[in-house]
């Protein structure tokens, strides 16, 4: 497998006929999509649309029921994250009793590709006190630490599940700006899910809209909203339309 | 409100009901099997008579006891352990789970008062648990009584295990364990902490206080002259004190008594004393009378009542504490 040795040549994510069924039913159905390199992808959709399932499939935490998915040309094994992928779950799991320094140390011990200098730089940028315990940090600071942990691994693909939920507007803006700066300067592909479309406006250049386990809309933002329709309105209208079709 | 509490406790209540049904079935079956065994081994008259009056061969008796020892013990352990189980699985999670999951906020922001909410939860949880306990306790008593002197009853009412499963004592312990569980639950706000700490505290307190009751019930005192060979403890009962008095009726210290008795066991010439010589020697050495204070078997019910009152009283205090903690809970 040539692509294995040269992940740079392969697409961050490519899925073909991907489906995932739980006992309760299909969470994701016949999903085919491609996520190009160096994009900031907004993954949006109502609750239960399959956003977390898709993220789980990309990380390999879940196994597909049907179809196929490749991450940088490799099929997620289910044994662990692809070395080039970082994943930040919605709850931002961190050890509450650890200090920030200890958290970074934890990152260094668990990631072979860890870049301590870079992680420290990110913490410094966030102005988070390094000897403070995680439990005492504010929501915004905690997100920054979790982000440093995810980025310190030097990933090529960063998956963020609702990274901005429970942050105040200013913290949202700051976190988002830091994230974009890093993604742009480091050439990282970022996939972030969010409910709040308004704040992804002008940030994301690629949109994946899921609804009831299917892709409603996917592609380059510039192309999707060629007539200047704001992203949020575009997605909301498409979702309303889908809901109406369903009711009919 | 009662319905809401009932619905939330439903799983536990169904478990309790299951316990009663299974318990009743098993005990009834065991009891009838046991009676068959007694009849077929011709031990029936040994049930009501004292052990030395039982005419059945010793090996038959022994075989019966060996065979039934485990079922008897299991039943006793069940009744001894049930209060602890009620405390751990019903008392401790009752409020701790609500506080842990934040669902108390739902109740606190409706129009019922916190006290009414608490009382309805307590009643719905506690009453069925107590009924189940009493029913199982009665069934076990019914079974063990059928075994009479062939079973654990032989050891008398004051045997710690027998005492713990008789009369109102289990109810007292259950009340205490339950109240302790709820209190620790409200204070710690953690189900797991409440369950473990509650259990630990219950076990410690239950055994630490088990002797206390004996000092609170009026004991009987009996004295006999040193020379006589009468058994002071007629018909069982619980001996609290035993000792010797001198001629003027003053108690003699135990170490001195043992020295004097040791001295009387041999004649002045150094040869072992005869029984008569020994008995005659005692009053001469100053050991005038033996005395004992004890609680007779017939007064066991008083001891049970006091015991239940102690644990019940503690339970009430703890419930008041629970109510107080809940009122200032946020």
């Amino acid at each position, binding site marked *: 497998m040539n692509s294995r040795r040269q992940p740079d040549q392969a697409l961050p994510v490519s899925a073909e006929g991907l489906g995932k069924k739980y006992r309760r039913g299909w969470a994701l159905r016949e999903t085919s999509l491609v996520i190009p390199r160096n994009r900031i992808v907004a993954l949006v959709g*109502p609750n239960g649309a399959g956003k977390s399932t898709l993220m789980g499939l990309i990380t390999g935490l879940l196994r597909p029921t049907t179809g196929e998915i490749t991450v940088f040309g490799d099929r997620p094994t289910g044994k662990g994250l692809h070395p080039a992928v970082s994943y930040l779950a919605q709850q931002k799991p961190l050890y509450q009793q650890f200090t920030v320094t200890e958290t970074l140390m934890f990152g260094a011990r668990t990631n072979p590709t860890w870049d301590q200098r870079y992680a420290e730089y990110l913490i410094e940028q966030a102005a988070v006190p390094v000897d403070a315990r995680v439990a005492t940090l504010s929501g915004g600071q905690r997100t920054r630490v979790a982000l440093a942990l995810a980025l310190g691994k030097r990933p090529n693909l960063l998956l963020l599940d609702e990274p901005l939920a429970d942050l105040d507007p200013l913290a949202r803006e700051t976190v988002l700006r830091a994230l974009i700066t890093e993604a742009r300067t480091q050439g990282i592909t970022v996939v972030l899910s969010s409910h709040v479309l308004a704040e992804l406006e002008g940030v994301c250049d690629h949109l994946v809209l899921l609804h009831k386990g299917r892709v409603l809309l996917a592609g380059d933002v510039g192309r999707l909203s060629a007539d200047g329709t704001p992203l949020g309105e575009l997605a909301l209208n498409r979702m309303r339309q889908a809901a109406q079709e369903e009711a009919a | 409100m009662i319905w809401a509490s009932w619905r939330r406790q439903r799983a536990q209540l169904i478990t309790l009901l299951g316990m009663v049904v299974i318990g009743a079935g098993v005990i009834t079956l065991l009891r009838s099997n046991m009676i068959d065994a007694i009849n077929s081994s011709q031990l029936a008259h040994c049930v009501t008579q004292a052990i030395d009056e039982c005419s059945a061969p010793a090996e038959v008796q022994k075989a019966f006891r060996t065979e039934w020892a485990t079922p008897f013990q299991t039943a006793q352990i069940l009744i001894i352990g049930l209060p602890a189980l009620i405390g751990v699985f019903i008392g401790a999670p009752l409020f701790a789970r609500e506080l842990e999951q934040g669902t108390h906020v739902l*109740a*606190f922001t409706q129009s019922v008062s916190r006290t009414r909410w608490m009382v309805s939860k307590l009643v719905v949880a506690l009453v069925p648990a107590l009924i189940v306990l009493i029913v199982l306790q009665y069934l076990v008593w019914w079974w063990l009584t059928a075994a009479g002197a062939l079973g654990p009853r032989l050891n008398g009412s004051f045997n710690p295990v027998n005492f713990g499963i008789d009369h109102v004592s289990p109810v007292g312990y259950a009340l205490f364990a339950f109240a302790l569980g709820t209190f620790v639950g409200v204070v710690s706000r953690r189900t797991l902490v409440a369950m473990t700490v509650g259990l630990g505290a219950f076990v410690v307190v239950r055994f630490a206080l088990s002797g206390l009751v004996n000092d609170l019930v009026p004991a009987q005192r009996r004295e006999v002259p040193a020379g006589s060979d009468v058994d002071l403890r007629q018909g069982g009962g619980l001996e609290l004190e035993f000792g010797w008095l001198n001629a003027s009726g003053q108690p003699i210290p135990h170490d001195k008594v043992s020295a004097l008795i040791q001295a009387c066991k041999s004649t002045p010439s150094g040869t072992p004393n005869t029984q008569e010589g020994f008995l005659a020697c005692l009053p001469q050495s100053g050991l005038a009378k033996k005395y004992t204070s004890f609680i007779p078997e017939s007064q066991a019910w008083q001891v049970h009542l006091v015991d239940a009152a102690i644990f019940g009283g503690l339970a009430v205090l703890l419930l008041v504490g629970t109510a107080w903690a809940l009122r200032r809970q946020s």
Partner: protein
Amino acid sequence: MNPLTATAVGKRYRTRWAVRDCSFAIPEGKVVALVGPNGAGKSTLLRMAAGLVRPTTGELRTFDTPVNGRIHPDVSFLAQNRSLYRDLTVRELTRAVAAMNDRWSADRVREVLGLLAGVDYDAKVGTLSAGALTQVAIAMALGRLPRLLLLDEPLSDLDPLARDETLRIIMTEVADRGTTVVMSSHLLSDLREVCDHILLIDGGRVQVDGDIEEVLARHRILVGPVAEESTVEGTLVSATRTERQATLLLREARPAPEGWAGTEPDLESLVMGYLRASRERRSSA
């Protein structure tokens, strides 16, 4: 009679003051946006008003009755964690909450739940999506027929469709019954259409309190050259600066001096300006 008043209210958790010296009065019939940075004390304030937390100092009154560890019969509270019995079905939950209330409108609850797209009455509450969970919780809050509705982050973890639906339910309540609403939220873009009063707290203290239109009219955003910042008159709330340009948020601003462009801020930039000021205060403290 104000639905909610606070007089010098403070709440201390061990050594930290979550709310401090907070005084305000919410006028009847308003829809109030309670905003502020994370950890500003918004939740504590709402929980105190609902009688779940006792103030360390001062007093809160709902409908002129002191809140004394008990929720006023005319007040409903939506907790941030939604606090519902998750092991019950929706039908059972409705019955349980109805049983806990003296005044209860089953029709209202049915109506609100009816607005939800296909909520299954026999589904366990715990299996509902976050959006449906919030909407069920709001239905429970409205079943009490409140005159004051306290909502702690009603919109967080809702998808855009569910947010729209939820706001519609709340606004219908306001239209029908003139209910006063106080809601905390971080989603300023959603608050703009629905709120007419703002209460901005920071570090547990009230920073801005008033009718949104009036508050906005009192403020100005001025954009101009950094070098001439001293010519601007008014109370500076906060500023962002590049090498040459300064963007200032001012309170009680005078007309903009020569070379400066002045506009009235929108709600979002106003709140952001105050949040920025709060962060600067905190990092310098």
